[in-house]
């Protein structure tokens, strides 16, 4: 973060952090401050995740434990239980936030998110089919991945206009989601109760019992995608002014869009394959990021940090709220995200956008 700030102050009076001629990440003072605050909040939430509860590592011992001094129960909690889960939550949340920001920037549509276009339900159906038809041979997460991609393809094809038209997008998404949900419900019906409830938890998106394998998977996806996102960030920023202006300024809008959608799909698919279809993070994180800074642009970095914060908070609730025991984290994000979506819709309507 310090390097970013230095770059911001010295190299780029116009608010871009540049690296050679191709990379130009929009960095504004308000964004940097917001990002710092969000990182601090995330660190706080992460600390709470590790320390709270019966199995929590005492706050006084946390620093020691993190630097390798954990023993006995603390070591087990840090290395096997909450450590990997927290790292997966951070990575998945960031991936979803980034994916949502890319989608919304390309579609110029606050609803153009993986959730609305049926990606989550597609992943659920894919997972369900694999769990029923090919148990033990194909991992459920692979089925989720395939289902998500297929659902997205279906929506893309059936709108006839790609992801651009919000009304068509939403309705097609609802249609695809309805079929996928029907499949999932049938499989949940057809299975043994114990298997069915495991599957029901998975199709809501869950972070329980995640291992370091999952953590490295999602972080690899994230690290691979991040530089590419940085490469297209400036072009996306220009693209938000409209295709004609973007073309006039020499950035090829169609290429940028294709690249951004592909990146968004890779990120979202990565998230789905480790954590299942977690609802609404991709939709809400960019919106929140946008409202926090009130400047234009795709807010890639901020959305990623916001996504990580939201998911860590939701997972903290999933682990510690006494009201419901051991609920999958996706249920918390669904409830909160649904309420937020409602708020968002009423706002859009007042402004006459939809």
């Amino acid at each position, binding site marked *: 973060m310090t390097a970013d700030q230095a770059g911001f102050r010295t190299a780029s009076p116009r608010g871009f952090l540049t690296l050679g001629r191709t990379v130009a990440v929009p960095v504004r003072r308000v964004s940097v401050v917001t990002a710092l605050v969000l990182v601090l909040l995330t660190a706080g939430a992460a600390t709470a995740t590790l320390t709270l509860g019966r199995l929590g590592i005492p706050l006084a011992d946390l620093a020691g434990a993190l630097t390798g001094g954990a023993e006995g129960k603390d070591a087990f909690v840090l290395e096997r239980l909450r450590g990997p889960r927290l790292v997966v939550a951070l990575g998945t949340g960031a991936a979803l936030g980034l994916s949502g920001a890319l989608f919304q920037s390309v579609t110029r549509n606050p609803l153009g998110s993986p959730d609305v276009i049926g990606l989550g339900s597609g992943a659920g159906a894919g997972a369900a089919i694999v769990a029923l038809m090919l148990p033990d041979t194909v991992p459920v997460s692979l089925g989720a991945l395939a289902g998500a991609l297929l659902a997205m393809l279906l929506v893309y094809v059936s709108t006839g206009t790609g992801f651009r038209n919000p009304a068509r997008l939403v309705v097609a998404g609802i249609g695809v989601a309805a079929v996928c949900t029907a499949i999932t419900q*049938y499989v949940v019906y057809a299975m043994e109760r114990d298997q069915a409830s495991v599957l029901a938890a998975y199709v809501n998106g869950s972070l329980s019992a995640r291992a370091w394998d999952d953590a490295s998977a999602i972080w690899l996806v994230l690290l691979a995608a991040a530089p590419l996102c940085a490469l297209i960030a400036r072009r996306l920023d220009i693209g938000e002014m409209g295709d004609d202006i973007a073309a006039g300024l020499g950035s090829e809008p169609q290429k940028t869009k294709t690249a951004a959608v592909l990146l968004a799909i890779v990120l979202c698919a990565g998230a789905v394959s480790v954590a299942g279809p977690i609802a609404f993070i991709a939709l809400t994180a960019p919106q929140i990021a946008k409202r926090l800074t009130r400047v234009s642009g795709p807010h890639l970095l901020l959305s990623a940090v916001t996504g990580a914060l939201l998911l860590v908070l939701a997972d903290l609730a999933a682990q510690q709220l006494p009201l419901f025991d051991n609920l999958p984290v996706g249920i918390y994000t669904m409830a909160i995200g649904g309420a937020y979506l409602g708020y968002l819709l009423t706002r859009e309507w007042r402004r006459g956008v939809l």
Partner: protein
Amino acid sequence: MATTTHAPPSGAGTSRTGAARRASILILGLAVLALALCASVMYGSRSTSFGDVVDVLSGAADPNITTIIESRYPRTALGVLAGLCLAVAGTLMQGVSRNPLADPGLLGINAGASASIVTATAFFGATGSTATMWWALPGALIAGVLVHVIGSSGGSTGLVRLVLAGAVLSAVLMAYIQAVTLGRPKVFDSYRYWVVGALGGRDFDVFMSVLPFAATGFVIALVLGPGLNTLALGDATAASLGAHPARVRAGGLFAATLLSAAATAAVGPIAFVGLAVPHVVRVLVGVDFRLQIAFSAIAGPTLLLAADVVGRIVLRPQELMVGVVTAFIGAPALLIAVRRMRGSA
């Protein structure tokens, strides 16, 4: 669409050829429905022939065959009732909101009924389909009203708004349902059997307990037919013709909610029947709502029974639930409709 392109406030049978055409559609519709009824009692894990059905009806069949065929009566009756309810509810909702996408399932009514039923089984120990029915109704009603309130906030009720509002409410209610069911194996068990939407495994008691609601809703729908025709001309014109748009709308919403709550409580949430049937019917008989409602009452049961029979045949000896089959039929129809949507927003 072929016969009339404008809304006739009074004249259904204005033209003689139109009346003849509608009469032939009516006869054809009834014939197809009769076929679907026959198929529904004939096919299953143990299939019988048409001759067997005739024998049973005339009392001349052997007892085994009679038992098999009679065991399919309740699900057939439920199919007729639920199909009628869903299709008429869809017609009413599309008329009231002038929104071609309105459907009980998309508008949060299913989620409301589900949430209510889950609450009842988890916290009040409700069991049995009759008790379920009594719980589904208020849930569906509250959800239906809520979606309309959210959907019409800040101005007129637009094409997509109600659907979105329904999606939002459904999301929140689904979170609640999952939260309650995942921690309680018994509730989860009964919920997962209910939510998939099936006609089988239910007895005549269910039919009888939802019948009053369905009948009330249907009668209101028939009474509202002329009012809905007037509404189609626009609120200002309707008011100047002496109609009461607000009353018609409230009545239509109430009847649609009664009907879809009855169907949902009886057989679980079934998607797309309420969405697809009105579109087909409108193409066949035109824009007169009195005809639309009557023909929906024939086409809905036909579609649902046909879907149920298909579900019984494709995976034999297992069954595919009717809700799954209708989703597979309905979603492509919706996607085709999306491609034809006009406008950029």
